[in-house]
């Protein structure tokens, strides 16, 4: 069963992440997922706020706007996908993620499986 883990960081008043994790923490976490054979994929976003949104309206016109995220205090920082037997194991991995600490949280969502 595959789960998408959305890493949500919390930002302080200046827009800087409140997290105290180091790159080593993340490398260690990444390695432990790979060693356990549960790691399917994942990426970090280049920064917390740079984004654009694309919409196509009813006339087929493309509308591009800059990301509406700047004022938000919680922002998506990255994601990973794990393949584990059940939800409790997924929650265990989410709890081990450095992004779950210091005001951040991980949203765990099951991926659809179409009989694969």
């Amino acid at each position, binding site marked *: *069963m595959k789960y998408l883990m959305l890493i949500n960081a919390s930002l302080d008043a200046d827009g800087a992440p409140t997290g105290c994790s180091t790159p080593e923490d993340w490398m260690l976490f990444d390695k432990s997922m790979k060693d356990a054979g549960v790691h399917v994929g994942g990426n970090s976003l280049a920064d917390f706020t740079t984004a654009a949104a694309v919409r196509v309206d009813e006339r087929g016109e493309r509308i591009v706007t800059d990301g509406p995220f700047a004022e938000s205090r919680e922002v998506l920082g990255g994601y990973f996908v794990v393949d584990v*037997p*059940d*939800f*409790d194991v997924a*929650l265990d991995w989410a709890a081990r993620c450095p992004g779950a600490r210091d005001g951040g949280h991980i949203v765990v969502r*099951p991926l659809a499986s179409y*009989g694969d």
Partner: protein
Amino acid sequence: MTGRAAAASVEAVFREERGLLLAALVRRFGDLDLAEEVTSEAIEAALVHWPAEGVPPKPGAWLMTTARRKAVDRLRRDQAYAARLAELQVEAERAPAPPPATGGDLPDERLQLFFTCAHPALPAEDRTALTLRCLAGLTTPEVARAFLVPSATMGKRIVRAKNRIRTLRIPFRVPDAGELPGRLPGVLQVVYSIFTEGYAASSGPDLQRPDLAEEAIRLARILRRLLPGEREVAGLLALMLLVHARRDARTGPDGGLVLLDDQDRGRWDRAMISEGTALVEVALIGGPPGLYGVQAAIAALHDEAADVASTDWPQIVALYDVLRGLAPSPVVELNRAVAVAMRDGPAAGLSLLDSLADEPRLRGYGPFSAARGDLLSRLGRRPEAADAYREALELAGTEPEREHLRRRLAEVRGES
């Protein structure tokens, strides 16, 4: 008898078996929906066959075989469903062996179902509804009555909760030793919330709903059998027994509320009190005290006292001190203030209450206003007492509570 009424009465007869059967089938098939469906079918089949052919020598095994056969039939008819379950099957097989059954001939695998139903990823109301449905063996209309919502609403909520379990793939598994301390309080909380709704209904015509309180006690007895080494399970069962022991004295002949001071202590259930008191010792010995153990100890002190005056209030205040250390909350502070008032006089209690007046959680909390009204009236400050009672009256959820508060209000206004 209509088909539905017949089915409901069958479910009532097979209350205990229903939970056991359901849990065993969930373990076997890894799917709550299928397990529920075939559990009901097997019990209906028993009602058809047993009166005519006699109860089989191993009734549990008969029910299990019948239910499994029906499940296999269902899976033959629905290949897509079968394919999805086949995938789940692998996980079900990894679960540890069930504990031995006590009495009867069904293995007791309900513990894992308790943890699934009380999973933190489910909304709190759904946890209670599922536990009542799957473990207490209540029918959906009965669960709906427990929540005072229409049957159809509850039916939808249960379906939604089961879908959530399936979609997230919440496992049917007892958490391991490392995880248990984090997960057990959630299970106990569900059972206790069923009890508190039974002890003091939040709304509706009746003050108490003893059927719900008894369901909660029954669930706690099951947990106590399955987790004999967990002291907080003993504490929860003790607390509920010690409080429920006073049920008959808590309401007057007209259904009205009778406060602790005025209760006829001769009507307290002595057998329940001694069972509860013995469990308090189990709960408090051999480790640091837990939330339920301490609350049970407080309840035991009330139950052992001959009257309010001779109650060991200093000890009760001391236990509230322990409780506020374990789980600080404005409601604990409120109860502690009332105990302090009994130990040191109403003025001491009132000054504690007034220091809590800014707590957001106590704003709009009826028992806070009622306690203030009581202390103010004991101090002879009648107009202020009347204001407090009026406030409590507006916040009360049941008619017997309102009636009691109207009486107190009339007293402090000198109308009686």
